């Protein structure tokens, strides 16, 4: 597998530049991530036009990642060779309102792979999900996927460089809003996942006693107005509580690690989050640690498990990117991936069993 990138702004020339870098791998699938500066329809059409022998799949971003670098205004891509990827099937899910879209995609996967998704072996197959990051549908779609199969789907929510106007997923040479792309892979090499977030528990807990799940809002924590309880927990004045959101999100603890829920804004006494919180959930107040050090450790630990790594696809939360930018650490973060073929993007949310925030979820390939 090989990573490539271009900052060429013309979609036709950008696709040609990516093809020139990846064609020698004779890719079985090309995964690409592109700034929203590109015309999404034109870029997807040109990418599929360049790689006529394999599916091209991807999405728009809030920043791109390639081996050794974090980029803006670029296209990054990964070509999966036939030895890395024995088989792959891509399905577009246009209907994000219920389980029907996922069911239809899964029927197609079952027909292609010859086994129902409920019975397919999660030790030999893995899925990638890319989903419109402004759809608000991530939790619902991930829950439907998790209900129907034991295959892990890992991925990210498409971005639009923080314009918050429209994000797109790419499949079949077209660009789609309000949709998701599912890619089911049968790798020919060892594979695994990484979920890494840079937070530790503070020992303080907040229980969501009243929520508006559809709006991703918590109305009351511990039976009192959510914003007041959060402000007290972080030791801030109520009107300054939102300044602590980046440093002090909350986490739903599972297996000793947080599934992060990031507060977005205070609306009256409510707190709106970037992913939903169910009524009755007890959340741990978190405080941030060192993204670069924690990510380095996650990669080192995975190398110790798997041996040398052949490639990484990194779904990296935009809030982590903003923190790295704020601290002048984007170069240090990018360099963590210097010696491993890597592509990724800054997401509007990450998928790993469910929908989460302020996390990197990575698909990792070994030798």
């Amino acid at each position, binding site marked *: 597998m090989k990573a490539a990138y271009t900052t060429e702004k013309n979609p036709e020339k950008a696709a040609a530049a990516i093809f020139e870098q990846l064609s020698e791998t004779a890719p079985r699938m090309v995964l690409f991530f592109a700034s929203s500066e590109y015309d999404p329809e034109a870029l997807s059409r040109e990418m599929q036009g360049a790689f006529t022998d394999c599916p091209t799949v991807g999405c728009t971003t809030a920043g791109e990642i390639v081996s050794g670098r974090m980029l803006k205004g670029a296209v990054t891509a990964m070509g999966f060779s036939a030895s890395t990827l024995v088989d792959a099937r891509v399905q577009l899910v246009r209907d994000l309102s219920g389980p029907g879209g996922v069911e239809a995609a899964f029927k197609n996967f079952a027909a292609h792979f010859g086994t129902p998704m*409920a019975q397919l072996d*999660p*030790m030999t197959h893995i899925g990638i999900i890319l989903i419109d990051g402004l759809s608000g549908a991530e939790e619902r779609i991930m*829950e439907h996927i*998790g*209900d*129907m199969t*034991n295959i*892990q789907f890992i991925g990210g929510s498409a971005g639009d460089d923080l314009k918050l106007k429209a994000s797109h997923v790419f499949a079949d040479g077209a660009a789609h809003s309000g949709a998701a792309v599912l890619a089911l892979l049968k790798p020919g090499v060892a594979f695994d996942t990484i979920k890494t977030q840079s937070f530790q528990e503070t020992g303080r807990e907040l229980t969501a006693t009243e929520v508006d799940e559809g709006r991703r809002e918590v109305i009351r924590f511990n039976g009192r107005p959510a914003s007041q309880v959060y402000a007290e927990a972080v030791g801030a004045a109520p009107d300054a509580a939102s300044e602590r959101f980046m440093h002090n999100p909350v986490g*739903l603890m*599972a*297996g000793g690690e947080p*599934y992060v829920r990031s507060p977005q804004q205070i609306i009256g006494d409510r707190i709106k989050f970037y992913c939903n919180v*169910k*009524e*009755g*959930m007890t959340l741990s107040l978190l405080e941030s640690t060192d993204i670069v050090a924690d990510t380095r450790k996650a990669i080192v630990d995975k190398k110790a498990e798997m041996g040398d790594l052949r490639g990484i696809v990194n779904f990296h939360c935009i809030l982590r990117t903003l923190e790295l930018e704020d601290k002048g650490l984007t170069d240090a973060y990018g360099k963590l991936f210097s010696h491993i073929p890597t592509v990724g993007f800054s997401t509007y949310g990450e998928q790993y*069993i*469910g929908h989460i925030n302020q996390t990197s979820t990575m698909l990792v390939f070994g030798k």
Partner: protein
Amino acid sequence: MSGKIKSMIDAIIAQRSKGNPTVAKAVETKLILKGIDPGDFTAASPDDPAVMEKLQAMAEQFGVSL
């Protein structure tokens, strides 16, 4: 009466994971994300009808018979 909730949780995890520990851990996380933390219940936990109703619905979503 007590213990039914833990039995229901154990049955969901066992049927979905078929003994695969990685899948079992993932099913536990799915339950937590749906709003039921398996770690909150033991064989001594009282049979709360509301929780049992939620678990029955989750079992149906998972395609599991209890």
